Structure formats: structure tokens, C-alpha cells
């Protein structure tokens, strides 16, 4: 009996890895968003997960009515707008704002976004049709592929593909374009950047909008996989933060790798060990990482 159970459990592993990988992609994108904003402002944006939520919810609402071609840009635009709003609030305090007040401002915007989404679209999960599906009796059903003893849905391939595209795009953006290099300059030395004539406030605004846009894209592609819900942001945001810390704040490649690993670990521990507490896994990992490696994280920053 127990042997049969464990075999059953083991058989689930590939499936769990795949769903974990999908979730990990979202963490990776959120982690990159954290790093972009952290680099330009030294602010941890607590509203980061809400960008994904906005993208997902707006896309889910629109996808059931219109086509992807309308839903996608609208959802991403909504996310960017949200990013601009957060940036505005972060930039507004006239006196040099303390860490606590910046934390509180971003938390304030985060719960405001969540409340707004709840007001507009309710608390329930919103189902969304997959991007590339086949219509079966009026429903759009996702294609599924069999792969190493697991089913992988086309939408999950979409998530992975888009993540890869975004990460490569970000890399090119920061290395090859003027705007990207200006943002990197701000990250390295704000005063110097200002002297060279870079508008730092505009760069901060740009980094928030960009991080938000990334998050929203992630939200759009993932909304058919997870159910889009107005309270999905907190967990995604914290998972992304965890990945960002694990990979080294400000380090894109590290964040991406850490995000995917985190997603898989979370899915495996949740699926195999404590299914009741699977929501808590990411938070426990976050706590453990913060406690085991705080000096590591901080020291690297101090010595840089």
C-alpha cells in the first residue's frame, strides 16, 4: 500500500517539475523586475507582484471577450500604467524619503491595486482561454503534449518561450541601447549620471514602467495556466523577491536561474511532502534564505 503510494508520488515528479518550471518562469520575470528597479533606485518595490496580477486579470477579462491581439497590448499597457503610478508615488516625497516610508508607499500602492482589481472584477478566479487551443463544443481547450511521462500544455510552452524571449530582450536592451546604458549608468553612480546629463528621475520612471511591463507580460501569458485572481500578486511578488535575493539583487541571470529553481522546489515540496502547506513553501524558503545569507547579500553590496 505505502509502496504503491510512493510509486504514485514518484510518478508525479515530472508533472510537478513542469508546473514548477512554469511558475518559476514567472518568479524569474518578477525577480528581473525587482532587480531593474533596485538597480536604479535602491528601492524594493513591494507592488511588483501586483503588476503580474494586473496583467493576468486584465488579460483574462479581455480574452473571454476579444482576441489576444487586443487583450495582450491592453493588459501590458495597464501594467505599465500601474508601474508609472508607483514610480510617481515613490518620486513624489519632497524630502529624502526613508526606507520605511518607501516601503510603506509601495505597500500602499500594492494594496490599492489589489483593492481596485477586487472592486472591478470581484474576488473569484477568472478563467481565461489558452492562446493556441482547439475549440471543443464551444470551449477552447488547450493542446497537450506528452513529454517524459508528463503532460505539458501548449500554454506552458508559451510561458517558457515568452520568458526566454524577455530575458534575452532585457539583456540586449541593457547592453546595446542608449536608454539601457543610461539606466545602467544611474545604477552604478547616480551623481555621475546626473552630471553627464542623464535625467535620473526619468530613468527611475522608465525602470518602474519597464519592470511593470515585464510583470504584466508574464501575467498575460500565465493567466490561462493559473487562474487569474486579484490576490495572486502577493505570493508571486514574494516568490520573485526570494529569487532575486537568492540570485543576488541586481543580477539578472542569477535571478532568472534562482526563480526557476525556486518554482520547481516549491512545486515538488508542495506536491510530495506538505500539500496542505504548499502556499507556505515559498515563504519558508524566503525566510531561510534571508536568515542564512543576509551577510552574503549585504557584504556583496558593501564591497561592490
Amino acid at each position, binding site marked *: 500500500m505505502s509502496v504503491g503510494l510512493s510509486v504514485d508520488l514518484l510518478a508525479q515528479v515530472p508533472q510537478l517539475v513542469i508546473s514548477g518550471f512554469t511558475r518559476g518562469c514567472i518568479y524569474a520575470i518578477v525577480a528581473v523586475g525587482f532587480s531593474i528597479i533596485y538597480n536604479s533606485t535602491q528601492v524594493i518595490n513591494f507592488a511588483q507582484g501586483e503588476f503580474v496580477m494586473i496583467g493576468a486579470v486584465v488579460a483574462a477579462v479581455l480574452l473571454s471577450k476579444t482576441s489576444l491581439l487586443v487583450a495582450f497590448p491592453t493588459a501590458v499597457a495597464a501594467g505599465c500604467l500601474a508601474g508609472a503610478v508607483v514610480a510617481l508615488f515613490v518620486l513624489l516625497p519632497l524630502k529624502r524619503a526613508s526606507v*520605511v516610508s518607501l516601503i510603506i508607499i509601495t505597500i500602499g500602492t500594492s*494594496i490599492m491595486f489589489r483593492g481596485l482589481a477586487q472592486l472591478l472584477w470581484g474576488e473569484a478566479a477568472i478563467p481565461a482561454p489558452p492562446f493556441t487551443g482547439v475549440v471543443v463544443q464551444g470551449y477552447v481547450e488547450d493542446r497537450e503534449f506528452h513529454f517524459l511521462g508528463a503532460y505539458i500544455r501548449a500554454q506552458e510552452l508559451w510561458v517558457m518561450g515568452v520568458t526566454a524571449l524577455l530575458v534575452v530582450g532585457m539583456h540586449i536592451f541593457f547592453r546595446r541601447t542608449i536608454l539601457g546604458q543610461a539606466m545602467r549608468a544611474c545604477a552604478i553612480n547616480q551623481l555621475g549620471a546626473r552630471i553627464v546629463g542623464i535625467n535620473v528621475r526619468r530613468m527611475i520612471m522608465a525602470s518602474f514602467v519597464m519592470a511593470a511591463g515585464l510583470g504584466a507580460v508574464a501575467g498575460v501569458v500565465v493567466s490561462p495556466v493559473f487562474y487569474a485572481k486579484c490576490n495572486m500578486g502577493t505570493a508571486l511578488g514574494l516568490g520573485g523577491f526570494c529569487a532575486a535575493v537568492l540570485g543576488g539583487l541586481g543580477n539578472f541571470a542569477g535571478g532568472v536561474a534562482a526563480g526557476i529553481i525556486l518554482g520547481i522546489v516549491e512545486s515538488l515540496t508542495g506536491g510530495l511532502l506538505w500539500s496542505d*502547506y504548499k502556499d507556505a513553501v515559498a515563504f519558508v524558503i524566503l525566510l531561510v534564505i534571508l536568515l542564512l545569507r543576509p551577510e552574503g547579500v549585504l557584504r556583496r553590496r558593501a564591497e561592490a
Partner: protein
Amino acid sequence: MKDSERRGTHTEKAIPVRKKNLQLLNILPFAVFLACYAFAPRVVNDAQLTTIIYIGIYALLAVGLNLLMGYAGQVSLGHAAFFGVGAYTSGILTAKPIANEVIPGVSAGVGVISAVAALLLLTKPSGWKLAVGISLLVALGWLHNLPNLIPVLCAACAVAVMGIFGLMAKLQWMRTCLSGVVLTLVANLSKWFLKGTLERGSASPWTGLLVGVFLTAVISYLIGSQVLRLKGHYLAMATLAFGIIVEIVFRQWTSVTGGSSDGIFNIPSIQFFSYIPGFLRRLYEAAAGGSVDLRTQYYYLVWAFVFIAIVLAVNIVRSRVGRAFRAVHSSEQAAASLGVDTARYKVQVFVLSACMASVAGTLHAHNAGIGYIHPSEFGFIVSVELVVMVVLGGMASVWGSLFGAAAIQTLKDRLLDLEKTNPEFWGLKLQGLDPIVFGAVLIVVMIVLPQGLVRGFSDGVALLWRSARRSGRQQGVN
């Protein structure tokens, strides 16, 4: 020349903190508080009383959190977790039956352990002294079982015995006498606990309160000693993660907490009139203008705790340790270089504020007439609400926290009233406005008045007053 001018105006603008009339100014708010405390139940109606009770519970939380955030400068986004630990501990102990066989053992164990702890704390004895102390303790316990000894006599005996013991063991006699008092107290408490628990088949709310505080202290010590090494954003994220983990435990550990579908219900309300001396009871009755019902009793109890918390907080802030807290807030390096053990003080204030939250949690669980708790009352959003209260009232302002709690609680009530009318706005049902309003309040307060409403307001008044006086003086010259 120009430089010195600028410096001159610099100091002139600053307002010195006056010391001379400080005494009166210190006592005045307490007097007003006590007056309001006594007479509030006479003038308010039932719904308002409920609001006031909730304000009290949240004020207790906010005052504690302000010690941590406002004074010691350590952010906590998981404070509601401790609120929940207090509430659940007490709720579970009182609402669920306890087997008769285990009660005497538990009460004896609790009695002995706490007595030994008190003894150790007070006399710091070496091994043999401790052994003598414990045997004395056993003797005292025997003394207590003599049925017709009155408690005062017992206490006197204990003090005398401990005093003599102290002299013999060459300990400080004052401390050992004090430990005699503590021992009597502990023995009485454990006897009382035993009797009460056997009678009702479950623990009394007061036991729940103590156990809750104890458990919270242990948990917050374990968490705080690790987490408080972090700073700024990292600390905020860690406390946030802790808070969410605790909330998930409340939701998922259904066999103990009832989970999110059931929660814990039928929690008895907390009694306190039957325990206080007759003259105090008559005083309360005189203030309330008649016999005091359960709800009013509950009100008196909650606000008595608020009063105690405020007194303690005000005292701590203006003491050696309180100054150390504030020093840690400003510059940990400078504080450490002046001999302040920053790590220890941070943990201390964390545990203290967690214990205050735990007390608030117990009170909340035993809410007269409701007696029901649910995980969502201790979630992330509640932690944020607490932060809003502290920020709104003003960081590092004990009385401000009271104000912040009152403001937010009233706002919540208004929103609830509004929702009852089913308002619509462009065809949109306005339900669940709290988060939006709280978010907006947070942002606006942080951007416009980072000092909090009270400080901002008083600064504004001071500014107006000074400019008015200046213009008045100029007119006089003209």
C-alpha cells in the same frame, strides 16, 4: 558672515523641548484619558461602545508596534501574527475541553517551573542555593494546602522564610523577600488555575492570556533573534513572510485552529469583575452609573490594558533602555560604540511589542457576545492596517498611536456603514473599499505628512502661532 547668519536662523527655527512644565504636560493626558475611560460608557450607545472596544484592542497593538517601529526603527509587516498567536492560544485553551486527569499535573508543573524561574531571576543563586530554594518552595506548597491559613498570613510566612533564607545564604535580603512574594503569588495562581480549570473543564481566559503571552514571547524571541539581524527592506520582507506563514498555519492546521472554514467559536467571554476587590468594583459601578453588564465590563477591561500599555510605553521611552532604542533607530554604529548592545535591545523591544499584541489577541478572542475568531483577522492586511495606524498617528508618538487606531477604526466603521447601503458608482457595486482607502491613506500620509497627523498638525499650529506672533510684533513696531 553669511554662514553664521544661516546658522543663527537655523537654531532659532528649532523648537526646544521644554523641560520645566513637562511634569504637568505629562500627567495631563493621563488625567483626560482616565476621565474619558470612566465616563465613556455612560454617554455612548451600544454600537459606539463596540467601536470603542475595537479601538482599544487596536490601540494596544499600535502602541506595541510603535515601540518597535517608531522608537527602535525596526519595521514589522507581520505583527498580526502575534495578535493571532495570542488569540488562538487563548481561544483553543478556553473553548476546547481539557481532560480532567492532566489538569493537576499541568498546574503543578506550571507552578513549579514558574516559581523556579522567578527564584532564579531574582536571586541568581548557585547550585546549592537553588536546591535550598526549591525545598523551601515545596515546604511553602505544603503550607498552602493547610486549608484554614489566610493568604496574607501565607505571604507573610513566605516573605519571612525567604528573608531568613536570604540572610543565611548571604543573598541580598530584599531580593529574597521579593521572591517570597512572587512565590506566594505563583502558588496562589497555580491553585486558582487548578480549581477554576477543574470546575469548567477548560482553562480560564486568564490562563489563556498568560499562556498566550508566554508562547508569543518564546516564538517572538526565536524569530526576532534571527530576523532582526536584517535591515531595511530585508527585515520588512522577512517579517512579512513570517506573518504570512503564520496565517497559513492558522488556515491549514484545521485539527487545532478550526481552519478557515470553521474558525474557533464559543469562546467564553473574559470575566474580570468577579476577581477584583469590592471597592474597585463599586468604583466602576459608580462610574458607569449602575450595575455593569458583560459588555461594559469587557470595555473596562480592554481599556484598562490600554492604559497600562500606554503607561509602560511612556515610561520605557523615557528611560535608559528607551533612549537606547531610539539610539538604535538613528545610528546603530554610534549606539554600539557607546556600549548599547544593539542586537539585544532590538530583540527585547520585538518581544515586548509581540507580547502586547498577544494580550490584544487574547482580549479580542474573548470579545463579549462574539467569542469567535477566524484566520482572516490575523492576516497580512491586518499587519498593514497596524502599520497605517502607527504611521498615521506618528512614528515615535505613544499617544499618536491611540489616535491612529481611533482614526482607522472609525474609518473602517464608516466604510462598513457605507457598504450596508449598497452604494453604486457608475454601475459598479462598491464593496470591499477598505484596501483602496487604506492604500490611499498610506500613500498620502507618507508623501504629505511623514511625521504623522498629530506631529504634522502640531507643527503646523506652532508655525502659524509663531508667524502670527511675528506679524503681531511687527505691527507693534509700526
